[in-house]
């Protein structure tokens, strides 16, 4: 009580005001609903009123967002805005963090992701993930890709497994480069090839959704271009959500772009619109590199 009185009496008028920052903050505080089109009709994954807490600290506030079939949704926003946290909710990767608590409804084809009868291991086969740093297992190229199908029992004999490995490597655009050395260690490949190997590994278990957390940030422009080309091809068969710090990448690969800010989903719109005429001031400030 006393503190409140004391604060009220401090004259802060001498501090120069930044009009852009002020109006952006005001806009953020007023934000109760996401601007744009967070939901779609052919949603593969739905999330409604999702809140995420790390202990006492709330990291995500009331996020509603759909990921549609055959579309790439890019999630952008400053560091710590919750985009990766949200992405990790989509295949329950946050389960591995003891203090993390997720509330709200998340579903894959209408099935509750956090339902009691859902096995997170099976979920992660249906919703694959590719990480920032390529992380191949210390196994051969072949075994890296065959690992998932083996543990999920997706093949009954060696010939079937071979087919899955070759097919996955082809889809990941890596087969021609490695076909003569499938028994070489996965770690012997270049960074871009390793990342494509990880994509092949996630495709091998026939997922329905692929999540990508900054898949190109450790890659050079050529490897990045290959992965982006691949993302566009994969879109024909999967729903894809990608977190990226590169706005140009979001603009290049996605059909819809979602902008996160301090744990809130500020705006989701067609990528074409977001980068030419964003509806929310905060989105505008972020993508144009302004203060706020």
């Amino acid at each position, binding site marked *: 009580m006393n503190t409140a009185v004391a604060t009220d009496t401090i004259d802060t008028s001498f501090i120069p005001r930044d009009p*852009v920052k002020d109006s952006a903050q005001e806009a953020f505080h007023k934000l109760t609903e996401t601007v744009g089109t967070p939901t779609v009709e052919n949603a593969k994954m739905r999330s409604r009123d999702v809140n995420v807490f790390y202990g006492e600290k709330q990291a995500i506030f009331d996020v509603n967002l759909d990921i549609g079939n055959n579309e790439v949704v890019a999630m952008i926003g400053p560091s710590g805005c919750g985009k990766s946290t949200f992405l990790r909710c989509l295949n329950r990767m946050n389960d591995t963090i003891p203090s993390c608590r997720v509330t709200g409804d998340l579903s894959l084809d209408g099935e509750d992701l956090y339902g009691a009868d859902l096995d997170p291991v099976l979920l992660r086969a249906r919703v694959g993930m590719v990480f920032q740093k390529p992380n191949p297992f210390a196994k051969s190229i072949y075994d890296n890709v065959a690992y998932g199908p083996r543990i999920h029992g997706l093949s009954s004999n060696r010939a079937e497994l071979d087919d899955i490995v070759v097919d996955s490597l082809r889809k990941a655009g890596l087969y021609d480069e490695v076909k003569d050395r499938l028994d070489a260690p996965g770690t012997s490949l270049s960074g871009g090839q390793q990342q494509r190997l990880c994509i092949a590994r996630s495709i091998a278990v026939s997922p329905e959704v692929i999540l990508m957390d900054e898949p190109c940030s450790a890659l050079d422009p050529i490897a990045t271009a290959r992965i982006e080309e691949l993302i566009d091809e994969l879109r024909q068969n999967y729903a894809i959500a990608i977190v990226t710090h590169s*706005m*140009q990448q979001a*603009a290049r690969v996605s059909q819809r772009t979602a902008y996160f800010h301090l744990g809130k989903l500020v705006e989701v719109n067609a990528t074409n619109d977001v*980068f*030419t*005429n*964003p509806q929310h*001031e905060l*989105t*505008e*400030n972020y*993508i*144009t*590199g*302004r*203060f*706020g």
Partner: protein
Amino acid sequence: MDKLHLDQHISQQFNMELEDIRNKVLTMGGLVEQQVTNGLTALLEADNDLASKVAESDFEINKMEVDIDEDCTQVLARRQPTASDLRLIVTVIKVITDLERIGDEAEKLGRFSRDLTDMADDLPSYRKELRHLGELVKSMLHDSLDAFARLDVDAALAIAQRDEDVNDEYRTLERLLGTHLVEDPRQVSKLFKITWCARALERIGDHSVNICEYVVYLVKGRDIRHTSFDDIRSEFIK
């Protein structure tokens, strides 16, 4: 976003680049306005010296167009602007094309002024009508540049509507000249030149409308070209 906040980028250098481009466009606009005023004066007052001056200054406008285009290309290549910054660059590239063409029309006015000078006394010069048309388009150009400087969408839409008056005026003059031509076909060459002058003025009006349309795109992100005015009115004028 009704303001561009060009000074609010984290990169000061980027702030300066965009501000510099915007200032150059306004300078070019001022120059073009002066050219139109001079071209019209040269035409109406049969001032050959002024007409030569207009022709000479046209190079300057052309040079500015190339210069600003180059600046915009650099920003696109190096900054990959988005949202309002992108719209500003696109708008500038388009505005300066129209400004350069307005410059060409102004030069045309100066060029035809000589022909009006040695016009036979028995032929009406149509100066009064040309002056009237000229004043209309001059104010349209001035106001459209003003709307660009102030990012004033309401003004831009109001100015664009004024093009109807210009077209009416132009059609009236065209009819008069047509009738005259039928009555006295020997004057065909001179009457045609007067028509071309009127046409040049009318085109300046059209280019000014284009500038107004770009202002709406810049501020609102909506491309209103080739849209009926009724649709635009229902969307923007409440």
